[in-house]
């Protein structure tokens, strides 16, 4: 019974990991950008929500609805200005730029909001749970995280495979110059891909913030989780990222049932094992 519960809790946590890692996967799959500021961006989304909630001026659901498009817009602009510039100069430059962005974000947050930990109070949404038989309870927020992850990844996959812009995104990932010769502006296409990535990061960041406390330096630890989910699943495959996130969440949860102290370590060991024995990941794919 206890192990069943641990597996189910792990699935819920893994769903959130997958949702969070999806953005990293998209940016790598389409633009070959390894976004080292990915974790910090999720923290920024949480702080924007803190600002918007303020003295209870806005209800939480409205804040979520506002933050996601704001973040998508930030993503589009950031891609077309900062990231595109670094992409055009040198692939290594994007690593440095996103690393720099990470440091800037952490320090601006520290300066503005101090080092105090914060939470977003989502009331009964966080404390409430769905009772299954026996002693198993699934928290609503966990269920929402998993459902959101699956829904987002399915929707993004359908967008990539069916829509005009999605098709052009895959084309531009293969060969941006030829994409421009068939009529796409690769910079715009990349901007849209980044906007999608940022929207999922914002949603994941908000759910993280409702689940547990955060502070300005929470980003890098989260980045490691996302990075591991992407690598375990297979670089550049969104389905892989979903499976990778779930695998990581379940490993942590099941191991912590036996020995809470080793949960994080177990996740890292799975990551190392995948790197050593199956470096292409669970679902190898070249593009999203």
């Amino acid at each position, binding site marked *: 019974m206890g192990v069943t519960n641990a597996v189910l809790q792990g699935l819920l946590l893994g769903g959130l990991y997958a949702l969070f890692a999806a953005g990293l996967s998209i940016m790598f799959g389409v633009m070959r950008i390894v976004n080292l500021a990915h974790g910090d961006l999720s923290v920024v989304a949480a702080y924007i929500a803190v600002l918007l909630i303020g003295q209870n001026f806005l209800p939480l659901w409205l804040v979520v609805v506002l933050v996601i498009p704001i973040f998508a817009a930030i993503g589009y602009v950031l891609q077309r200005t900062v990231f595109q510039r670094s992409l055009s100069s040198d692939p290594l430059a994007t690593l440095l730029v996103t690393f720099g962005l990470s440091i800037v974000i952490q320090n601006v947050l520290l300066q503005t909001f101090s080092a105090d930990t914060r939470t977003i109070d989502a009331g009964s949404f966080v404390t409430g749970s769905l009772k299954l038989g026996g002693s198993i309870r699934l928290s609503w927020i966990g269920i929402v995280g998993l459902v959101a992850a699956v829904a987002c990844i399915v929707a993004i996959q359908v967008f990539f495979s069916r829509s005009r812009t999605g098709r052009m995104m895959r084309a531009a990932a*293969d060969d941006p110059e030829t994409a421009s010769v068939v*009529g796409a502006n690769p910079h715009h296409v990349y901007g849209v891909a980044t906007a999608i990535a940022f929207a999922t990061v914002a949603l994941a960041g908000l759910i993280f913030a409702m689940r547990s406390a955060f502070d300005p330096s929470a980003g890098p630890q989260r980045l490691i989780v996302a990075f591991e989910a992407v690598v375990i699943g297979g670089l550049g495959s969104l389905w892989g990222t979903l499976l990778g996130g779930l695998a990581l969440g379940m490993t942590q949860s099941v191991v912590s049932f036996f020995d809470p102290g080793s949960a994080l370590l177990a996740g890292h060991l799975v990551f190392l094992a995948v790197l050593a024995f199956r470096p292409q990941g669970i679902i190898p794919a070249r593009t999203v």
Partner: protein
Amino acid sequence: MSTGHDGASYLLEVTDLDVYHGQLRAVADFSLRLAAGSTVGVIGANGAGKTTLLRCLAGVLPATSGRIVLDGTDITALPAHRRVELGIASVPEGRRLFGSLSLQDNLLTGTYRKRSGPWTLEAIYELFDWMPARAKQSSRQLSGGEQQAVAIGRALLANPRVLLIDELSLGLAPVIVKRIYATLPRIVAGGTAVLLVEQDVSQAMAVVDTVYCLLEGHTVLTGAPADLDRGAVEDAYFGLATGAVS
């Protein structure tokens, strides 16, 4: 449609075009006029500047000086995707299909900014009747000739006014080349003008209305294939003609 000095109207007019590859002047003082529904060939040996010329016309390489005018609109400074919108499509050297896309998805990328016109997916499938059966296959599984056909279909789906084709015959078996060349008349019949770059001189001379021979970036010979002496073409191609290079 703009009107040239001799009263005829031209769809594409290129005037005194210079294109540099770093320090190298790869195309020098190139001028060309292309009327709707006509086919023009650019021939020349390796390194003559043919591909550079086409890449500049497609908008991938910037022109250092000179003008490119499409139907009265100066497009010299426009990026590639804006030129597609105005009616220039290309079949790039080496086909350049999108490797992770299926055959059909490769074709459909050509519709991203399509203009209205006769070319639809159905029309392409009619032109190349082997395609429907393999529509879902990855473009990596196609042979060179099949890839070339997909690249042509992709370009046609944009319903271009000017179709730029780079090295149609490169790396393909002669029988395949012949089959692909056989589709050209149908393309031109729709009013599309074709600018063809080719190393295979006899193949090009058989289909074009006017031929330009490039040597080290300079135009050394121009004319209708019927008016040109075979020996003169060979001399121009290999740079043997006296005073060909200034």
